[in-house]
């Protein structure tokens, strides 16, 4: 999805025929991108709403899942993603200043951090599989009384983090495209819209995680 939203701009700094001025073109891309992010908010809200309902209905079962969630890993991953947001914004800044090497550097850092995040996520998924916590395929819950409701939690866990991870993967692809373009010196202080737009996307994905972390990892830690 996001790939296509931005293809528009990836194709070149030249002013496309149907725009009057470069400013108009940039503003249009910006509003397009933000509108797209709004659709993403709504997409995730469906899952957040379901999560909220079930958490309020089956609170104890949800809290009981916390002992299978590795808070330290989750927190580190959160930090990793925040760092990648930081490097991303530095890349955007570099692009605005037209500093080619800096753009390349920060994009590479961002991609690396993103990959670290995905790697940790994969490790966690693997762990869940080993612990028989994948509902539908491989699910066995220690506390039998919570089994049914914990399954709902883990279903939502995989749907939410899965969707988030998918967005990350798409983001990596977008960053790779940016990287090639930056390498070829396509971005200048005058035209750097794609970096800006994909930056927005990347930060949005970060924000989703900022909510997922406390909702999924920190429910029953106090117990």
């Amino acid at each position, binding site marked *: *999805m996001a790939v*296509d*939203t931005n*293809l*528009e701009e990836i194709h070149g700094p030249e002013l496309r*025929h*149907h*725009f*009057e001025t470069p400013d*108009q073109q940039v*503003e*249009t891309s910006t*509003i*397009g991108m933000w*509108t*797209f992010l*709004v*659709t*993403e908010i*709504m*997409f*995730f*809200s*469906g*899952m957040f*709403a*379901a999560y909220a*309902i*079930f958490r309020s*209905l*089956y609170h104890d079962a949800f809290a009981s899942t916390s002992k299978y969630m590795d808070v330290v890993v989750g927190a580190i991953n959160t930090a990793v993603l925040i760092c990648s947001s930081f490097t991303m914004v530095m890349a955007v800044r570099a692009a605005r200043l037209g500093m080619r090497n800096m753009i390349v550097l920060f994009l590479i850092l961002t991609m690396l951090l993103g990959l670290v995040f995905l790697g940790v996520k994969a490790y966690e998924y693997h762990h869940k599989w080993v612990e028989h916590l994948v*509902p*539908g*395929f491989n*699910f066995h819950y220690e506390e039998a009384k919570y089994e*049914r*409701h914990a*399954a*709902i939690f883990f*279903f*939502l866990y995989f*749907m939410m983090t899965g969707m988030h991870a998918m967005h990350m993967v798409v983001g990596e692809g977008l960053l790779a495209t940016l990287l090639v373009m930056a390498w070829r010196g396509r971005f200048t202080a005058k035209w750097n819209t794609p970096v800006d737009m994909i930056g927005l996307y990347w930060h949005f994905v970060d924000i989703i995680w900022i909510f997922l972390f406390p909702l999924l990892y920190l429910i029953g830690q106090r117990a």
Partner: protein
Amino acid sequence: MSTTVERPRTQQELNYLNIDYSWKSWLLTTDHKRIAILYLVSITAMFFVGGLFATLIRLELLTPRGDLVSDDTYNKFFTMHGIIMIFFFLIPSIPAVLGNFLIPIMVGAKDLAFPRINLLSWYLYIVGAIFTLGAVVSGGVDTGWTFYPPFSSTYSNTYVMATALGVFIAGFSSILTGLNFIATIHKMRAPGMTWSRLPLFVWSNYATSLIQILGTPVLAITLLLLAAERIAHVGIFDPSIGGDPILFQHLFWFYSHPAVYIMILPGMGVISELVTAFSRKRIFGYGFVAFASIAIAVIGFLVWGHHMFVTGQSLYAGMYFSLLSFAVAVPSAIKVFNWTATMYRGSISWDTPMLYAFGFIGLFTIGGLTGLFLATLGLDVHVTDTYFVVAHFHYVMVGGMVMAYLGGLHFWWPKISGRMYPEGWAKFAALVVFAGFNLTFFPQFIVGYQGMPRRYHAYAPEFQVLNVLSSAGASILGLGYLIPLIYMLWSLKYGKRASANPWGAVGLEWTVPSPPPWDNFPQTPVVTWEAYQYHKPWQPEVEVGR
């Protein structure tokens, strides 16, 4: 001596249709006008597929016994009828065809903001349609267009996944169209084309786009959750595994109620254009009509629970959803009254598009008012899930939106095709459609109040008389839809050539030649006039046709 001399084509005569004839120039086009034509062809095909199922439904219902087809087959018929008509015909109808064609021209732009995304959304539509039609030909699907679990997630053994995937993909097509319109309307308006000068068609499509981008993603995620539940037999909707079927209904209707306004707002926009053009009057209360569109879009998001009055939703939730449903009727009422008032002291011509506009106003009023019956709590308990509901939504969707779509298609046909349709036939068809429509669906109100449930393959014998009337009406209605198909195609070759402005209407689209050149305007127009400036001589500062 009547040899036709082939005149050399000059630059000026090139328009978006004859500029290139290759397949590639159509399938890879980014011109909003050509994409509109692609949509026109595809949704017309889908309409007839949906209509075919409607025909089969009405045939089965001629007799009380389920004798024509088996119960499973019938269940597939209405499901596929509903899904195709809603997701593949009515939702894209006016926005993706007329909106695509007209919005850039109406705001004075050369194209939509993101032409390639526009093409992408057509391809998504086609891919979605392929999945859905694939499900149809491989055996169909029988969940009802509402996909309620646990039936859809656990019990149905038809092609639910393929259909849901088709709808999911078509949803993204709809989202991208909405996104494109929003960016276009915000940022691509010509100099002088202020918000208060926008044609109401643009306003109503803007409101529609809001719903598309805010609602459709929720449908997408809901279907995704449903699919996951169906695959893995775990999830959150099936009560046998701890889930809640009513949660699905909340999420589904959060989209699908606003979606009914996706299916009416663009029609209201068309009617505003028709009523003004054929009365030669400025719209009465421009600000109110424009604002009503936005109000419908916003309040429309607050009423979804009125589809769930009898499900076990809290009675208090029922109360607020009911009250808000009445609130959302107010802006619709404002529109109806303003259209009527616009005609006051106008100069009214009875051309075909205006006949459709009359039809719309009458039938939408009936459909909308019966919506109020459904929004009334105690009464809905009796009429929900009966033919009363079926009649209600066909009145608004077929009597309302399809009428508006046909009216708009006739009105802008000269602009789109460069040809006039045959007026006599068109008037005749409009009357046939109106008569057939009422005969089909009015009896359903009565049979619904008597208690005939919907989605019934066989029914109690005392309901037969009204059902026969309805089936008779449907055949007339079907014929009424066939006539325009034929003469529209005919007119492409034999129709009278249309001038740039055959109706004497105002608006930027009438300042460009028919059909328009590929980039619409040689120079960006500067707008110095109000919308619907029929009371002053019409002197747009754009070069007309050259």
